[in-house]
């Protein structure tokens, strides 16, 4: 008997009698008989010990960050996660709860989401945040759809310094509403070309999308971009862990800030799940075009403070085909990780972590340049990752590094032809000086 199914033979007998049928099979009589199957062609069930042994074996064949030093980023990063994050988020009363449809017995979820919305507003410098989307890429896609919905314009400009997978996701999403995408090129500093941007903005443009820091690690000049992008919606994709040290996009003129929350206390998980965050400037008209769940404060019949899902008239279960999005399940649990993380590190910790990242990455660049094999590709200031051109055979280099316990940088050659011979290195607070020395010592002799 399966450990999750409680029915005894006696239960079965009594239940069938109550329903007044002879056997369980007869309950499936509405399925066309010629299509009924009687088994699933999968092996029989296994006990817990053997399931975990099998899975542990699979897990052990992967090179994980508990054994290897990681110098790879590009959207997912190896950061230090305080123990308390996983410990608290693993409480069953959080992770086995459903969407807070019954607010009276979901105040833990609702208050934590309300606090999360506040924290996202604080770090991004925005006025309103929702209770999460799936990930950074899909958040961006939804932001683009929202911009067209709001402006009723169907042409968008996107920086070519945005994460390529984010652009691919946007391309998929704009196919339905038929929004035209135009790319903005970048200059030798790795920032978008303001000249190109200026020449392409017109009165049909709904939005301009940039990433801060961008895919190449470079910190875009949001102020100048805002200056040029006057009557369009400025959407900024951001890495939240950088915002303890970098100026908040909201302070630099962003209308919408989206991004992936993985860096805020969530394991790399082979790329998912994390969560997407979605914040906008304070605007009561704008918020009504926003996708996703939003938590609001209110009072109960006794006047006691409480929290509910609000502005639900935007959502699919009420508005049906006229909803702002079809999103239903979001990534609430990911927001809990982020909230706990941000509560633990606080304003001071987030700044220190930013400083650690920027110091380590700049130190790493300096040491790489000294080996004679690497030249910085872009002159623009960067946060915790940067692009270098190398004279080494990249796949060979990565193989040698791997033999020495190191997961090397991201090879950009595959992404696009102009990036041949380029790699994206990343260093975070989790990379010790020992790891950096080890990396350099291996590269020096190549």
């Amino acid at each position, binding site marked *: 008997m399966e450990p999750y199914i*409680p029915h005894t033979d006696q239960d079965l007998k009594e239940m069938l009698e*109550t329903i007044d049928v002879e056997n369980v099979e007869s*309950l499936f009589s509405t399925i066309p008989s010629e299509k009924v*199957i009687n088994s699933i062609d999968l092996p029989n069930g*296994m006990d*817990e010990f053997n399931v975990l042994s099998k*899975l542990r*074996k*699979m897990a*052990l064949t992967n090179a994980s*960050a*508990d054994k290897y030093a*990681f110098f*790879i980023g590009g959207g997912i990063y190896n950061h230090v996660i305080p123990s*308390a994050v*996983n410990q*608290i988020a693993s*409480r069953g*009363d*959080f*992770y*086995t709860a*459903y*969407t*807070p449809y019954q607010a*009276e*017995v979901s105040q833990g*979820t609702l*208050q934590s989401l309300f606090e999360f919305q506040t924290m996202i507003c*604080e770090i991004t410098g925005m006025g309103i945040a929702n209770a*999460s989307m799936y990930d950074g890429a899909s958040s961006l896609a939804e932001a683009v759809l929202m911009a067209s919905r709001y402006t009723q314009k169907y042409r968008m400009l996107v920086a070519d310094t945005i994460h390529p997978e984010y652009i691919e996701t946007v391309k998929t999403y704009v*196919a339905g509403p038929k929004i035209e995408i135009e790319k903005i090129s970048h200059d030798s500093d790795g920032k978008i070309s303001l000249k190109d941007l200026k020449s392409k903005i017109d009165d049909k443009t709904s939005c301009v999308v940039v990433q801060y820091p961008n895919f190449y690690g470079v910190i875009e000049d949001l102020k100048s971009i805002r200056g040029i992008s006057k009557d369009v919606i400025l959407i900024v994709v951001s890495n939240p862990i950088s*915002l303890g*040290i970098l100026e*908040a996009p909201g302070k630099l003129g962003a209308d919408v800030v989206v991004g992936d929350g993985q860096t805020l206390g969530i*394991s790399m998980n*082979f*790329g998912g*799940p994390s969560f997407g965050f979605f914040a906008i400037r304070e605007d009561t008209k704008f918020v009504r075009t926003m996708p996703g769940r939003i938590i609001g*404060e209110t*009072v109960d019949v006794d006047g*006691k*403070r409480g929290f*509910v899902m609000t*502005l*639900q008239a935007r959502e*699919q279960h009420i508005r049906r*085909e006229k*909803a702002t*999005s079809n*999103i239903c399940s979001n990534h609430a649990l*990911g927001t*809990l990780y982020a909230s*706990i993380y941000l509560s633990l*590190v*606080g304003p001071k910790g*987030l700044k220190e972590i930013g400083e*650690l990242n920027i*110091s380590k990455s700049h130190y790493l660049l300096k040491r790489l340049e000294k080996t004679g094999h690497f030249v910085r590709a872009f002159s623009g200031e960067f946060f915790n990752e940067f692009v270098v051109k190398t004279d080494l055979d990249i796949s060979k280099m990565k193989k040698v590094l791997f033999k020495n316990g190191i997961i090397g940088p991201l090879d950009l050659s595959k992404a696009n032809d102009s990036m041949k011979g380029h790699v994206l290195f990343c260093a975070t607070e989790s990379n010790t000086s020992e790891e*950096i020395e080890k990396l350099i010592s291996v590269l020096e002799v190549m």
Partner: protein
Amino acid sequence: MELIFEISTAGRRGFIPPKLDVDSYNLSDEFKRAVPPKLPELTEGDVVRHYTNLSRLNYAVDIGFYPLGSCTMKYNPKLNESAAAFDGFSKIHPYQDENTVQGALELMYNLQEALKIMSGMDAMTLQPAAGAHGEYTGVAVIRAYHEHKKDFERDEMIIPDSAHGTNPATATMNGYKAIEIKSDKNGMVDIDELKKIVNPHTAGIMLTNPNTLGLFDENVLQISKIIHDAGGLLYYDGANFNAIMGKARPGDLGFDVVHFNLHKTFSTPHGMGGPGAGPIGVKKFLESFLPVPTVGKKDEKYFLDYSHKNTIGRVRSFYGNFSVLVRAYAYILTMGGDGLKRASEMAVLNANYLRAKISKTLEVPYDTKPCMHEFVATTEPLLGYGVKALDFVKRMLDYGVHPPTVYFPLIVHEDLMIEPTETESKMTLDKFVEIVEKIAKEAKENPKLLQEAPHITPVRRLDDVRAAKQLILRWK
């Protein structure tokens, strides 16, 4: 309870980052943040207590019965959590070389294969992050297929009124007009109506089967023929797949695209609303339209397959909600083919048992044939006492159970949609029936008790109107 910001005390720390062990870099002021974010300042102990106390305000599957219709709130096994936490699964990066993550790719490949077998589909992607995301992906595949055939006229997606709530919005996001079709008196798609509705503009139909009334649409083969003859495709909303594992396969019933909710049928936790995972499966002729990458296998090596030549592109970054996939795969291994079939059998048994018992107290429409994994009851007769369905379920909170879904599907008034799942015992179901009987009695004797319910929850009924009018969406 106080907000975390209200207990913040300037100067406290909850975490000390590692010491800087390389040269310090001085970022130029032009990039620097001027004002630090107002995040809480607390010790680790403060933070742990705050969140622990918050968690105690929640109801959850770990606490008790959660018969929320169409949400499949089955028990979430703990071994799944152990497996997902293995370093080799949680601490790996999506851009590592394929040969350094063979175990992860193998797991994904095996899961794809298992889902193919269970659904009767030919190809699978694990990329979508939720059920609605799977719907979005599946309908995008249908659109890409029509457009690939230069068939640009098809701009209508048919959706029964008993389908899942997300379906119409999914159609719209894909640029389709959502065409609603009414159910007939038996709760099935009205076949005569369907024949009238289909036309050269029909792109397809999104069918939830069993539907949200908990009924298996017996005309499914006929529906399939009508849609296919009109040149459309059949989409299977797999949110209710927990009813038919080992009993029927959407692929055999004529469906071209199917999505699964791993967070429903395959026991992964709902996480207060997510993350889930919504893999989709398609028939061979649609394989080339799937999002990239999927996971392939060649010469005993697993690889990320980017070769789908008509791909719709990506629907998100990376490969899917991997740690959710680990949990679902662990569940499939534990249950096995035999156990999964038994899960569906017991889910359907539980629903029919509960229906039989509850029908003595509440009205149960559409009860001439067995239901599948869920059923709909109505409290409409209690309106005479001034008691609405909402009042009825709010009173359940006082008795310590989570209410069923209310006011959905829209075709039954004052309805409760009840899905017990297979992980609940007869004892739990009997206790629930007692609660329903008690509340029904209260409704007649003391309706105020229900109208003002709940009474003993952490907060009582909340003012939704005020929340939407005086928008307070963050602490200040």
